[in-house]
């Protein structure tokens, strides 16, 4: 029984109320879901037990019974990372190591990773002495474990204890890391390679040069490409740590080799990390080595690699040393970019299209007009909608440099085509750029060329498009003003109220909902309200209850006399409608507008 007396505010008295057995039974419940719930509330249990019994009874139990569902183990691993206070503070934090050590050896990666994360967290709460007495031996045990899982976990723990231990222990840690880098199983080598950069950061520079470089070189020429590609990531950290004069001999041979690796996955990684690498090796090496390497990646035989490199074109050019930037771009990069514009693979083209406009700010007006504009125009006519869309969505970069007018001739057909694309997601994307385009092209151009498109979207057969179209109208009105709205948009929107299709009639209401505020009281009261009120007699119930909703929405924009004399009677009538939903929304509107 768990009956308890009212405690007099003192918390200590509660401890004896809950025998550990009862609590442990909760953690052992046959039903996984219940067990999981209990584990997730482990801190509550620990709090009930008090720190002493948590240490002496709860933790040993947890350590002994780690054979559960992965989901339960994951929750446990996470909980233990926040348990320091519950076992009595930093002084006792090492009590948490045994269960976490077991969790760090289980098969399931997610559990293991979480256990390592928690271990890393609580390592910071260890005193330097405890770190050497309790934590570091654990790392060593994991590092020399039989099964690959414990060795994999060890890789993530070296860097957190290294800075805070004595030099003898440091030497041991370096030795363990070295051993794991040449482990028999690729899983462990991958783990070591992925932690190489992090470990290098905490090492003394001399050891970076003596130890890390040889490990880096070895991992970067591993027999498995999954290991080699991780070395590329480490390359960024290592290069950042070394003085410029050492980079050429210690890092560059490996990096050059990676950029020409026979596996596309490694080359992909180089392309993907190119900006980071560029920053890490500095301007001189960039000019001499990275520029040709980048050219090769842009011309790679695998589309994946080309796309990754194309994605980096802008960033790479931006970060080139200023003195030679323009020359390098014009003579080395631009020719490759030109080829990519007509690449056979659409992902490559679309990756390029998402960054190519950014080059105009770097190259300035004349170069943009002469060299880039033809490329933009070509991409605007690309057969793949994503390419065109990416160009259009980055028009603002170009606008700043040469103005959008230069493009408008080609822009229009591209927009019209996208506006009618068979894929509704493409149509949706282009709608979202309409306000931006309208702002840049000006009201005249818009009225002349784009207005009809915007109205056509209102009767699209996909709801998401109609919805986006109404939202678009609102943004346009915000941009061009109420007067413009009154002359161009409002009449057309209101005209749809007489459409035989009830979906179109509803669109009128949706437009009014979003336009009323931007159009202001006068237009709303004089032009929109009469139409809404008239629609309250619609034969379709959906239209009628949307009338109620619209009235609720536009109510705040109207003046009080209109509300009382015009809106109130209509809502009252709708509140007695035969349709349940119409009644409901009418009543809701009456109460929200305080018309009762």
């Amino acid at each position, binding site marked *: 029984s*768990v009956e308890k007396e009212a*405690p007099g*505010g003192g*918390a200590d008295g509660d401890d004896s109320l809950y025998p550990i057995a009862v609590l442990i039974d909760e953690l052992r419940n046959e039903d996984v879901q219940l067990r999981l719930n209990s584990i997730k509330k482990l801190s509550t249990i620990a709090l009930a037990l*008090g720190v002493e019994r948590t240490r002496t009874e709860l933790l040993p139990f947890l350590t002994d019974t780690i054979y559960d569902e992965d989901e339960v183990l994951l929750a446990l691993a996470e909980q233990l990372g926040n348990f320091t206070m519950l076992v009595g503070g930093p002084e006792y934090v090492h009590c948490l190591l045994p269960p976490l050590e077991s969790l760090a050896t289980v098969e399931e*990666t997610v559990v293991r990773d979480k256990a390592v994360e928690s271990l890393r967290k609580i390592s910071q709460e260890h005193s330097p002495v405890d770190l050497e007495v309790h934590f570091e031996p654990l790392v060593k045990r994991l590092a020399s474990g039989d099964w690959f899982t414990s060795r994999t976990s060890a890789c993530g723990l070296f860097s957190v204890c290294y800075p805070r231990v004595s030099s003898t222990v440091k030497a041991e840690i370096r030795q363990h890391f070295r051993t794991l880098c040449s482990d028999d199983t*690729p899983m462990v080598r991958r783990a070591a390679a992925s932690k190489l950069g992090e470990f290098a950061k905490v090492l003394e520079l001399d050891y970076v040069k003596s130890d890390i470089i040889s490990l880096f070189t070895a991992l970067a020429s591993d027999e498995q490409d999954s290991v080699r590609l991780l070395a590329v990531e480490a390359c960024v950290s290592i290069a950042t740590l070394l003085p410029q004069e050492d980079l050429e001999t210690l890092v560059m041979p490996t990096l050059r080799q990676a950029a020409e690796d026979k596996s596309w996955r490694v080359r992909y990684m180089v392309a993907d990390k190119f900006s980071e690498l560029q920053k890490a090796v500095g301007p001189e090496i960039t000019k001499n080595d990275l520029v040709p390497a980048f050219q090769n990646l842009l011309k790679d035989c695998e589309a994946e690699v080309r796309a990754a490199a194309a994605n980096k074109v802008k960033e790479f050019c931006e970060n080139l040393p200023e003195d030679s930037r323009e020359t390098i771009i014009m003579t080395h990069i631009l020719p490759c970019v030109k080829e990519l514009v007509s690449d056979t693979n659409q992902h490559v083209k679309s990756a390029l299209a998402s960054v190519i406009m950014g080059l105009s700010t770097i190259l300035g007006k004349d170069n943009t007009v002469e060299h880039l504009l033809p490329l933009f125009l070509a991409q605007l006519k690309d057969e793949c909608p994503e390419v065109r869309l990416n160009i259009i969505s980055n028009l603002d970069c170009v606008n700043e440099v040469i103005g959008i007018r230069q493009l408008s001739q080609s822009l229009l057909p591209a927009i019209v085509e996208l506006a009618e694309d068979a894929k509704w997601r493409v149509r949706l994307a282009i709608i979202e750029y309409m306000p931006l385009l309208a702002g840049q092209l000006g009201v005249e151009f818009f009225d002349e060329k784009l207005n009809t498109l915007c109205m056509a979207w209102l009767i699209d057969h996909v709801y998401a498009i109609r919805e986006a179209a109404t939202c678009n109208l609102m943004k346009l009105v915000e941009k061009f003003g109420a007067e413009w709205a009154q002359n161009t948009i409002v009449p057309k929107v209101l005209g749809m109220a007489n459409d035989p299709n009830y979906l179109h009639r509803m669109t009128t209401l949706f437009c009014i909902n979003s336009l009323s505020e931007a159009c202001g009281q006068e237009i709303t009261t004089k032009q929109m309200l009469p139409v809404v009120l008239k629609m309250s007699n619609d034969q379709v119930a959906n239209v009628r209850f949307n009338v109620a909703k619209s009235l609720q929405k536009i109510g705040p924009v109207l003046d009080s006399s209109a509300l009382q004399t015009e809106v109130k009677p209509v809502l009252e009538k709708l509140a007695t409608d035969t349709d349940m939903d119409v009644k409901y929304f009418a009543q809701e509107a009456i109460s929200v507008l305080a018309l009762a």
Partner: protein
Amino acid sequence: METTKLPPTSPSSPTTGFSVPSAEKVDGFPRRSMRRARQRRSHSSSQFRYQSSQVELTPLPLLKDAPVAELHDLFCKKLQQCCVLFDFLDCVADLKGKEIKRAALNELVESVATSRGVLIEPLYPEAIKMISVNIFRTLPPSENPEFDPEEDEPTLEASWPHLQLVYEFFLRFLESPDFQPSMAKRYVDQKFVLQLLELFDSEDPREREYLKTILHRVYGKLLGLRAYIRKQINNIFLRFIYETEHFNGVAELLEILGSIINGFALPLKSEHKQFLVRVLIPLHTAKSLSIFHAQLAYCVVQFMEKDATVTEYVRHTFSVVKGCKSPVMFLGEIEEILDVIEPSQFIRVQEPLFKQISACISSPHFQVAERALYFWNNEYILSLIEENCQVILPLVFATLYRVSKEHWNQTIVSLIYNVLKTFMEMNSKLFDDLTASYKVEKQKEMKRERERTELWRGLEEQQERRLQTLGEASRNQKNLQERGESAQPSSPQTALPEHPDLDLSGAPSTT
């Protein structure tokens, strides 16, 4: 040294490989891959484009016309000629060269397969080099990143017209009566095997089929590589399970293992038991289990037949594999295992097993419940149940009783009635007792449930109180600090509650 029983060499095609039950036998439907006659998309590895300059091939004299003295020399020249690679994505490029290589490969295949005395030592490095140059390549990125082997058409290797002949040559080479493992092992080494294993990830089922047969021959003939091959397959599986969840050749590798397990020496080495527990059983949790389940189940049953004591390890199956994505398949495998289980071993697994089965019976998915209930139609299993009725019936009774009252599917309800009837006939005394105590048990369960809720309510209230006290304590402490040392020690309200060991507030301590 363990022995490996090699299936008889198939002279015609590698597709009729092993005595493994193929997917057809299991589900009765033709495999989709067999129906894929059309070749829609194809891709080529990037290796071709890495060749710097293209060599022009000139036809060599035919092998069959060559004088005996020049035969080996000519053979060697043809091997070298076949090291030239061609661009198959451009189907009209260098047609002449492609034809010369194709003819040369055909000749090499025929020569190795039919004539004796051709394979002399100097040819081994040349042959292995030719094979390596042609087949070893980084597989290209999948054109469909979400490639689903069950739904999507695989991307086929464009250079297959040549590649197939190279594989065919390799296979004939290994199967030739002149083949000398002692010579081959110098060239077919660990690095070679590792690259061969990586190719199993190929999306092209034709390529994997060849690789399967070839690796099996290598395993059979080159004894020194066996342990290494097993270890690397382990690594591939572990990576598949815990890292990538993607590898196209799992079924093929399992098929090879199925026949290897057969040859394991007894008693089983710990390496092999570990393989069962740490690799084969976790493989059941893979999302794509359905693609290789037939081969996997075959491997597990092979282990069982080999050494009945591994049952204890298979116990893990019942507990570890609760996360199995497709319980129906899993139940099918359990039935296969039970078919070969020794009664003495059955006793050791019955408890976790029938807990699992009763969980399946109460599944709202009728196919799962149905599959579990079918166990009672299996005569051997039924006899095992009958022998252990005292243990099993109490394990499943409550579930059967409850589900018979509330399952939505009529078929399930009537299946359960049959099962209950069987139990009644088996042991009517026990059955009556359980029926009588069902209500009491049910009430006990509800009481326990109430107690649980009560317990947790209490615990949470307590936690809240504690945190509140601590919050007050820390506020008081702050106040004290702000007021400096002049705080009134006489005021009982500001006295800190005693929490020597607990400080969740994180407030700096003044004492």
